[in-house]
């Protein structure tokens, strides 16, 4: 491992752990305002959606809204599977299977 790689990993580790630990470190000393506490439950779905939608509609950094886009097809089928089965494993497995089938067949 080169020195530059070591610095990069040390830096990435410091910021990543820093972000994850910052609030935990202060946990017993801070109190969140009630409205802030109400807003917490919206965080996970908002963040995950903001990452997912562009990854599906612009898989290679360019708009591709058509059934020729295997990412979009996989996402739509896994969404349908998730709503119908309410089963996480089925949601992921069907999405991955749809993607592979699309790549192999189309």
């Amino acid at each position, binding site marked *: 491992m080169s020195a530059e*790689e070591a610095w990069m990993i040390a830096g*990435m580790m410091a910021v*990543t752990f820093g972000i994850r630990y910052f609030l935990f*470190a202060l946990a017993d000393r801070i109190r969140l305002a009630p409205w802030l506490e109400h807003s917490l439950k919206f965080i*996970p779905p*908002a963040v995950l959606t903001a990452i997912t939608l*562009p990854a599906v509609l612009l898989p290679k950094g360019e708009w591709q809204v058509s059934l020729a886009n295997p990412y979009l097809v996989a*996402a739509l089928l896994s969404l349908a599977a998730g709503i119908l089965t309410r089963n996480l494993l089925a*949601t992921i497995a069907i999405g991955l299977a749809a993607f592979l089938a699309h790549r192999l067949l189309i």
Partner: protein
Amino acid sequence: MAALICHENAGKWLSWRHSPTGSETAEKIPPMPPQESLKKHEFVTGMRDTLPLLLGALPFGLIYGAIAASSGLSMAAAMAMSAFVFAGASQFIAVGLVAAQTPVAIIVLTTLIVNLRHLLYSATLLPYLKDLPQKWRIPLAFWLTDETFAVTVHRFQRNDASAYKHWYQLGSSMAMYLNWQLWCFLGLVLGNRIPDAQSWGLDVAMPVTFIGMIIPFVKTLPMAVCVLTAGAASLLTLTLPYKLGIVVAAFAGIASGLLAQRLVDVRREASQR
């Protein structure tokens, strides 16, 4: 014992098929101090509820390894990144930046922005972990991922008196960590041998996994408003540099969800009068 049984129905959605014999297996646990068996039960349940997400992390880890192998990063550095940084999305972006010969400072800054969402996750878990000693908070923070968060938050929010819910998070963390190391390693080894492994598009694993994690949150109208707004905002902020759009879109979603919640509450109060 009551606590043991009610855990068996825990996270109906997140876990795969529950055996109807759950409570029987709980009774078969060999005699141990009851505290120890409760901890172990939480730990094992956390691991089990995370199993589906391991499938999603599998192709993601493989493709990370394959991209890292072709990016010019040494194998030791690629594995060290998985072991010490342990953040899939940012590792993925980092090896892309390494291949494009980006300066280290920019890579670290991008990592910071991509991982800012973890600050929001830790804020959500804060009320549940604040009474634990630092020797618990430090490892749980290090292992905090999207997947472990999504599984664990449902466990913490369930109304039961278990004092060992953090053992559940530890179980989920361990499963994610070991699984990630394994597939990254295989991706690195195979990536050198399979030409053009990146063009397979295994990165589809991330959106598909995230869709599975989003669905159980969307149970109310305000939550649906939040998700739709965050999605729309993520498409409108694509031009922002360093993935900042994710943060902006997330805040737009949260604000719209709060607003919708307020409107729903006001309407409910009005109808009750």
